[in-house]
């Protein structure tokens, strides 16, 4: 190919190779969540305004923005947990693996089995560590003890907490520290082998060391899972995410590669926010 001398042809060839690369990348990372024209109201208050986002598989997507900008609302729409708030209404569509999850025919139980969630405050069940992990698998019909034991070890290892709790699996999860509880919650999520893990400010209630552990864990997890994380900590978004969404007053202001968003934001409001002029 390089033997060709005419410029035009060379360029053509290069472009086609670029295209191929781009194509193969797209193949590797297909769109898992495709949000189109999403609006959401809590009663009369318009919380999400015309959201359009494509979230790719096996990436960490961070959503940042000041309090009340709708970032938690948006992430809770992705597994329809937002419906627990009375008086919620939506319009538009969110395709998860090419199915509109806002469609009433979608069973939320199935969706939530594939899309796990980690909350702001650690919320293990008031049961033993073991019971916490096997909760999901058991509900979904896995009964054999040998398999459950295996799931427990695998999930706890996956959440980087196995070594800390392996000798106290049958003690109450509430005896653990906040950071450990949060990793138990992550392990509980992993136990049903979801495709996506939604994290709603998972480290906001934790100390810096626990936060660091969870961030390291996320870097491991993104090899196998798609992670969408809401955070009010911009450094955290910069450290761990591939793409970043900046939201303000219920709208997506900017959505781009994390490096680009933080080094060279295209919107003035993004720049103001990340340089600490407000928020």
């Amino acid at each position, binding site marked *: 190919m390089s033997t060709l001398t005419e410029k035009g042809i060379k360029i053509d060839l290069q472009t086609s190779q670029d295209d191929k690369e781009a194509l193969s990348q797209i193949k590797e990372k297909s769109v898992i969540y495709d949000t189109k024209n999403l609006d959401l109201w809590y009663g009369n208050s318009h919380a999400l305004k015309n959201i359009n986002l494509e979230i790719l598989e096996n990436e960490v997507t961070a959503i940042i923005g000041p309090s009340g900008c709708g970032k938690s609302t948006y992430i809770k729409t992705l*597994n329809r*947990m937002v419906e*627990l708030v*009375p008086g919620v209404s939506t319009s538009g569509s969110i395709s998860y693996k090419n199915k509109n999850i806002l469609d009433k025919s979608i069973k*939320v*139980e*199935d*969706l*939530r*089995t*594939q899309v*796990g*969630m980690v*909350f702001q*405050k650690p*919320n*293990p*069940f*008031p*049961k033993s560590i073991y019971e916490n992990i096997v*909760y*999901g698998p058991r*509900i*979904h019909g896995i009964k054999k003890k040998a398999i459950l034991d295996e799931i427990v070890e695998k999930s706890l290892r996956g959440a980087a907490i196995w070594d800390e709790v392996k000798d106290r699996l049958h003690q*109450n999860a*509430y005896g653990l520290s906040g950071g450990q509880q949060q990793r138990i*919650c992550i392990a*509980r*999520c992993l136990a*049903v082998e979801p495709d996506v893990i939604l994290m709603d400010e998972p480290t906001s209630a934790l100390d810096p060391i626990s936060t660091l552990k969870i961030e390291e864990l996320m870097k491991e997890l993104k090899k196998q899972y798609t992670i969408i994380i809401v955070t009010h900590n911009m450094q955290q978004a910069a450290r761990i995410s591939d793409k970043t969404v900046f939201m303000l007053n219920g709208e997506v202001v900017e959505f781009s590669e994390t490096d680009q968003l933080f080094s060279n934001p295209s919107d003035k409001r993004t720049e103001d926010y990340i340089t600490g002029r407000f928020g």
Partner: protein
Amino acid sequence: MTSHSKKENNAVSVSEMIAQNKQKKSFHNFNEKSIPVFLFLLASITILTTIGILYTLISEAIHFFMEVPILDFFTGTELKPLSQDPQFGILPLLNGTLISSIIAILVAGPIGLMSAIYLSEYASDKVRRVLKPLLEVLAGIPTIVYGFFAFTFVTPIIRAIWPQVEATNILSPGLVMGVMIIPMIASLSEDAMSSVPNRIREGSLAMGTTRLETTFKVVIPAALSGIIASFVLAISRAIGETMIVTIASGSSKNFTFDLTQSMQTMTAYIVEVSGGEAPAGSTLHYSLYAVALTLFAFTLIMNLLAKYVSRKFREEY
């Protein structure tokens, strides 16, 4: 001028005023010391009353047990206080009390718990705000009304369906007593379930479980101590219940498990004997205290059990 004089007054600083006031505090100091003593005395009234009642019961019951051996009292299956050869076995009364309480809890347990589940997990705020007070109205109905209701309304219905049932029987007051303690179980269990934090429910729902699965696998286990305690307290209430059984179950001291028959409970016996002409100092008179002491022991044990259960099974969250 006035503004000037005000300024003069304000010239005394707040800290000086506080210092002045502190010197006048002797009355305050007296209050600080005497009021806690006063409060302690008031708080002791209940304890002293309990001790007083216990003392009366025991001292009088001793007279009874000097005439009737304890073993005969607790193992005797015949209670014939007025016959030529009086028998004082408490088993017929224990039997009546336990059977009526068991019927009551069989009615109230499931209904109360299901109501609590509905109120806590399914009802909207609006519905709950209307239903819960209504449920508690049921708890405010005087028990004599329930007794009357059992005797004049429930018994005839039961007899229409099941003609062998006697006009006074243990079944009808047992059922009505069950209705009476439903609010207790529903209300206390609902309290226990709604105090389970929402984030725990969300954690479960986010795992892809249904509301029902979340309720039974997470919320109820987490609230179990409160739920069991509500059951125990309700049983204790049924054991101590008097008017319903007195009116609707008659006064036959049958030692039987036949629900169609009249039976007497410990409480109804006390009503009967203390209302009749038991001569002071007679064995019949003293038998009151022995029965009352047994009843007291039962309810005390139940209440202690409720305390123990709610502490033992408390799940921390």
